[in-house]
């Protein structure tokens, strides 16, 4: 096989045994790789009704066929499992360097099953595979853990690990790789913690064989040059990373503010990209093989929030900033660093604290329960809550369950802004209707990474869509969901993929991506065939979550019944009922959202 190694590593933590298996080439072809092949195995091997934190759940690390190839951003991996936050599928995606190092061990997938009796970590140095005791690492944060493991093994090793939040099974726990990158969402870190698995150390030099190495190199260089030309002209992504986005979403009135009680934030200019660049940015930091370099190495040089690290990117500014009403950028940066060190999803963490602030301000949770005042804008209280969540101390134990369970416990579930119990990212869908349909239908609960039609509704890439209309959005959302399933499965980053390896029509089309896949694998896909594989992946996930009992595609109360009070989208709610029936029809699903027998047969499921 080319592109894929065609081998997976199975790690049984209960029996402390490992084994190597071949992956059926037809499965690779039909499910592409990464998210898709991992989902194939999860569906085959895990009962969808399993308790996500029980040993019977499995957790899969998966690289794509383009991971560790010359493709620009060919450096992503996915963590696929049943989510303890949503009860649906989790497919959390990360870059950095670890994904390429993982692929260079000579395996496409690591499948973790069971639960170790005591903390362990996994070392994979090509065919040297060892489960080792991790008692000395347990309790350490992700930075300490990474440093200790690199010191024990090699500076050439790359590490993915959990911090205290994952150990303590907080439902917003992430898996952090290379200290600053996160497979963040859906509580994948809690699943890793439930297995008593502290870390994975990857070492190796086994790049996958390529079908046409020279052709792939040439196409990759050409693609990188296109990115480079835009960067030279002054790309926002290089200059600001995604921290330029608050100015955009605030202008459109969809910048989540005070737990989505507003769509504009009066202090946006204090926390946006310009402020970050002028005050705290050291330099842009790229993931491996990325010509764009959207990462931000930052430093708060002195004061109570002194520190150095990476971030914040847009979603963090939205959740821990405007979401919580916080306008102190240094404090926001510190909060970001803490999330990375404790191993937490900044979206889930920030929006859960935002929900708690609303509960507190409305008098639904008393101060003696919280242990302190918790008003919007109180950045010190926000920082205190992050630690309490990670360690599940006091009120932090409630927060560690995420905003839905928190608000339900205190009698006001209408305050939680979630779908499938997962917190919304940074686009208020009342002013971005397609995003509303996306959040409602997403297999992993509310997520922009499931099919980010904000590219068209907000950013004009590749074409500008009116964000306030519902016409045509069902088709757009379906197409973006499938396209993102393809990108995640191939092993690329959406930032470069959407703009540079898809065609530039409204219905983006994977022309160059198909070419890359063919040069890499030698399969001879057509774009139609590869999009059919993406649809297959989307539907196999859909069947898993329906069987798991996550059958309702809806939005939280606020999005359907509380019109935005301010900004250009004032007066609007999400008109979900105008989009959902058409979406089901286009998907080939019945009126209740179940894939029909005909659709499943068409996809070979």
């Amino acid at each position, binding site marked *: 096989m080319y592109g894929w190694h065609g081998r997976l590593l199975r790690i049984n933590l209960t029996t402390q045994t490992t084994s190597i298996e071949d992956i059926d080439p037809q499965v690779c072809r039909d499910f592409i790789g990464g998210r898709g092949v991992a989902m194939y195995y999860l569906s085959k091997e895990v009962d969808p009704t399993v308790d996500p934190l029980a040993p019977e759940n499995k957790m899969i690390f998966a690289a794509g066929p383009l991971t560790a190839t010359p493709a620009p951003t060919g450096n992503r991996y996915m963590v696929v499992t049943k989510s303890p936050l949503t009860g649906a599928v989790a497919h959390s995606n990360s870059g950095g360097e670890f994904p390429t190092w993982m692929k260079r061990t000579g395996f496409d997938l690591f499948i973790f099953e069971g639960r170790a009796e005591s903390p362990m970590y996994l070392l994979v140095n090509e065919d040297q595979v060892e489960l080792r005791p991790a008692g000395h690492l347990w309790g350490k944060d992700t930075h300490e853990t990474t440093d200790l493991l690199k010191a024990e093994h090699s500076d050439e090793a790359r590490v993915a690990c959990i911090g205290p939040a994952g150990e303590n099974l907080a439902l917003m726990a992430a898996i952090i790789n290379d200290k600053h990158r996160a497979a963040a969402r859906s509580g994948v870190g809690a699943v890793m913690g439930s297995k008593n698995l502290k870390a994975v150390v990857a070492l190796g030099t086994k790049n996958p064989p390529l079908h046409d190495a020279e052709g792939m190199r040439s196409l990759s260089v050409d693609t990188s040059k296109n990115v480079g030309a835009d960067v030279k002209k002054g790309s926002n992504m290089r200059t600001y990373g995604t921290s*330029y986005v608050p100015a955009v979403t605030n202008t459109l009135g969809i910048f989540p503010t005070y737990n989505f009680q507003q769509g504009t934030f009066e202090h946006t200019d204090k926390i946006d990209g310009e402020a970050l660049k002028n005050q705290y940015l050291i330099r842009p930091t790229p993931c491996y093989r990325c010509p764009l370099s959207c990462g931000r190495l930052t430093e708060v040089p002195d004061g109570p929030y002194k520190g150095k690290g990476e971030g914040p990117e847009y979603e963090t500014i939205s959740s821990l900033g405007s979401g919580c009403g916080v306008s102190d950028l240094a404090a926001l940066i510190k909060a970001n660093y803490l999330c990375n060190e404790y191993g937490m999803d900044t979206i889930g963490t920030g929006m859960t604290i935002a929900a708690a602030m609303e509960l507190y301000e409305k008098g639904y949770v008393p101060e003696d329960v919280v242990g302190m005042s918790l008003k919007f804008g109180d950045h010190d209280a926000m920082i205190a809550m992050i630690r309490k969540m990670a360690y599940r101390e006091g009120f932090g134990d409630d927060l560690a369950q995420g905003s839905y369970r928190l608000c339900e416990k205190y009698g006001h579930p209408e305050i939680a802004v979630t779908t499938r119990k997962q917190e919304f990212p940074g686009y208020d869908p009342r002013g971005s209707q397609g995003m509303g349909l996306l959040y409602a239908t997403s297999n992993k609960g509310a997520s922009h990474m499931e099919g980010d039609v904000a590219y068209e509704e907000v950013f*004009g*890439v590749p074409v500008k869509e009116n*964000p306030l209309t519902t016409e045509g959005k069902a088709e757009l959302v379906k197409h973006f969901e499938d396209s993102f399933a393809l990108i995640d499965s191939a092993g690329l980053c959406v930032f470069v993929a959407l703009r540079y390896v898809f065609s530039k029509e409204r219905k983006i089309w994977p022309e160059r991506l198909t070419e890359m896949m063919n040069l890499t694998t030698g399969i001879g896909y057509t774009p139609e065939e590869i999009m059919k594989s993406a649809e297959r992946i989307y539907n196999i996930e859909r069947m898993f979550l329906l069987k798991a009992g996550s059958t309702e595609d809806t939005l939280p109360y606020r999005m359907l019944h509380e019109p935005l009070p301010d900004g250009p989208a004032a007066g609007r709610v999400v008109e979900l009922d105008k989009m959902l029936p058409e979406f089901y029809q286009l998907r080939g699903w019945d009126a209740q959202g179940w894939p029909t027998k005909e659709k499943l047969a068409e996809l070979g499921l």
Partner: protein
Amino acid sequence: MKITVKLLANYKDLLPPGSVGNTIEIEVPRGTTVAEAVSRFEVPLDDSSVIVLNGLTVDLNTPVSEGDTVAAFSAIAGG
């Protein structure tokens, strides 16, 4: 009449030297369109820009009114 032009992120550099922040207030004749308003600052009018009137997607030939805000930013992947 007076309108406000906001040029976000890297488009801020298209504002005249000495401008503060990303916003400028300008005097325009009645009948000025959205496209004409941002053209003064050499904002590209093709699909490399996103241009909105009071935060709303409009035809670029829409005339502006007293007190309006026209904002523009370069079309690029999001966050």
